[in-house]
């Protein structure tokens, strides 16, 4: 299997797993052990760290009048990381090192927390102006700073 096929395959498994989490959480308002084990298997140590961030209500889905959305995740250090809704990106050092540089992981705990909180309906919501959204997306400002 080539790197491309491996990455596509892993991404497809991850997408399917997140859909399963969403479906099950909507029905039972909890994640059963078998899905927790699957999350741990696919995402490694990121899975528990992401669930911890969700428990702390660290994920905010920011939207503006244009309809543009982004996730903001408060990291353990108190820094706010902006993640995009349509592709894997996070400005945290772990994403740069383990995902971009070493290619060891699919994503970091902040991106996973954003996806899981969206699937579980546990993200906070915030509306900002279009100009504020532009600053958030470009990394010039966090939502609460603007």
């Amino acid at each position, binding site marked *: 299997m080539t790197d491309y096929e491996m990455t*596509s395959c892993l991404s497809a498994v991850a997408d399917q797993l997140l859909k399963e989490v969403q479906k099950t959480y909507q029905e039972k308002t909890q994640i059963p052990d078998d899905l927790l084990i699957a999350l741990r298997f696919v995402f490694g140590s990121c899975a528990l760290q992401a669930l911890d961030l969700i428990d702390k209500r660290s994920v905010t889905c920011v939207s503006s009048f244009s309809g543009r959305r982004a996730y903001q995740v408060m990291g353990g250090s108190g820094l706010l990381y902006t993640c995009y809704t349509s*592709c894997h990106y996070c400005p945290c050092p772990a*994403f740069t090192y383990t995902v971009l*540089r070493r290619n060891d992981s699919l994503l970091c705990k902040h991106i996973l927390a954003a996806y899981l909180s969206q699937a579980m309906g546990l993200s906070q919501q915030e509306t900002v102006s279009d100009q504020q959204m532009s600053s958030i997306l470009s990394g010039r400002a966090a939502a609460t700073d603007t």
Partner: protein
Amino acid sequence: MADILTLVFKNYINQSGKPKDINIITPSKCSTLVVGENVINRSLLLLAAVTAASELGLKVSFFTQVQIQSLPGSLQDDMSNLSPENLKKIKFAYPNSLEDLLQDVASLHEPVSGSAAPPSLIVVDGLERFLRVPGLSGALQQAELASAAHIAALLFDTAAFLTASLEERAAELSPCRVIASFQSEGEGHAGGDPSASEPILSVLDRYFQVRCTLDRDLLSAPGARPQDSWHVYLSGAGIKEASLTKGEEDPNLPKEWHMLLQKNGSMEFTPV
């Protein structure tokens, strides 16, 4: 696949050769990274922008650090056929730094709240000028990777949002595509995959589904100077997916071309 670039290759095809029939070019959401020497990259990007505006009637946002001093030879020949109204669809912006480019791209969603249609093509000329800081090592190199991922991801996310917006308000203008260019540090050296030795390029490849590589054709056409003869080939996940999808796209669309740069600077493409 790379619909607009393929249209450019088709429009400027070498008439004396035996061109293959290129019939259906399906609109594609795939973003494309053009990797070659910056002068050639820039000419190809300008051709793509003018083709998108004049032939497809698309709005184009063109970002570059270098002022446009002259048009490529291929366009100078065609200027009389180009409508000024269509050329006005191209909006040039000259961000000075990566921060300015990020802010400009991040602001592209703002007109969606008003009546103006967003662009259907975002072009970024010379990503290397925004990303590369000479003489870096260690932790600072890691910062370059993070910057490359930031701008590439923002372009991807912006195109995805604008595609959804265009589908709602003017489906014929969708999807929104991205074409950017990058000159690798190893440019000019023959052979090998530049991303193998250049980490920035492998980061960009994560977000751009199609790569259009321009290599000097060392086995150049008879009579052509080596610097004027180029091998152009399309590769990447977007190409593999297109070949696996049973869509309406012509399965015979060529992925490899030979490009000859004429003395007046015009480009001629021949499918390989």
